[in-house]
């Protein structure tokens, strides 16, 4: 087995000052399982250690700031927004986010005054990782996965968002090959902000739909 550990071994996250900490016998259950899977994949020639490493690096390189750039562009450019809603993968490629052909397709769901979207994967933890980075732990929890479909309004309330009764709540369960990203509503009072300033208001949670973007601080009085 390769001694070039991949993402199964997170010993580097803590620095390398504890060399004993990465001994196989002390690895946790999941770390050992991932190492075994990596070894099988490479031994069977399904992929190389380098390919695994590149896939890990690509995932780690993405963060909610990337999704926020897409949202901010949609807020300032209505033609881009139309392209994003019609064919999200092609539209985000315009911003430099090229998705490999084997990555799941992306659909963007727009929040309006009348509709609010919330994304979940009740079967596992499907998430638009190639645009938002790794999902938060709560997204993968059994609690969120079951409650998001049964009681979406209760879930958003716990994230600080009280949805009005006249707003249609639409829960998107990503059960198959499509990943969903919420296009949140642009907050009021942001008319004068630049695209970069707008992007800073867009949170990860608002693109999952459990909350709304930040509202800008009012300008300090002179």
């Amino acid at each position, binding site marked *: 087995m390769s001694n070039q550990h991949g993402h199964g071994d997170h010993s580097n996250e803590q620095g390398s000052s504890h060399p004993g900490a990465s001994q196989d016998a002390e690895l946790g259950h999941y770390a050992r399982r991932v190492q075994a899977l990596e070894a099988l994949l490479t031994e069977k020639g399904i992929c190389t250690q380098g390919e695994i490493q590149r896939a890990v690096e690509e995932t780690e390189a993405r963060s909610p700031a990337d999704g926020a750039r897409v949202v901010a562009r949609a807020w300032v450019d209505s033609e881009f927004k139309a392209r994003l809603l019609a064919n999200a993968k092609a539209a985000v490629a315009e911003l430099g986010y090229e998705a490999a052909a084997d990555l799941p397709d992306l659909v963007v769901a727009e929040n309006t005054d009348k509709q609010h979207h919330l994304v979940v994967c009740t079967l596992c933890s499907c998430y638009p990782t190639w645009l938002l980075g790794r999902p938060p732990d709560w997204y993968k929890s059994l609690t969120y996965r079951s409650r998001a479909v049964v009681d979406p*309004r209760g879930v958003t309330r716990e994230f600080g968002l009280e949805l009005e009764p006249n707003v249609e709540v639409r829960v998107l369960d990503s059960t198959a090959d499509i990943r969903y990203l919420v296009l949140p509503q642009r907050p009021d009072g942001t008319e004068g902000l630049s695209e970069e300033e707008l992007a800073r208001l867009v949170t990860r949670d608002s693109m999952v739909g459990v909350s709304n973007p930040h509202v800008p601080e009012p300008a300090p009085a002179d």
Partner: protein
Amino acid sequence: MASSVGGPKFRRGDRVRVLSLDVKGHVRTPWYIQGKTGVIERSHGPYLNPESLAYGGSGLPAQPLYLVRFNQLEVWEGYTGPGDDRVLADVFEHWLEPA
């Protein structure tokens, strides 16, 4: 997307019922919509069948995949939200029949 035999059987707005198929193993149709009636919201195109793909199969023939919309009040007994609330899930065509 993948190539499939024939085009999609359903179109946006069609009413469909989700079947309760006796398929063991890797199934992507959650139990809570099985037997429920919904409306086709979006046709995604053909995708490889996960029930074969998950076990080293080819996933062929590819199955049309749809986003199907359900009334929350019809899915969950005792749903406490307003009647307009919806839950939507992606369902493969072989799990759907006209309703």
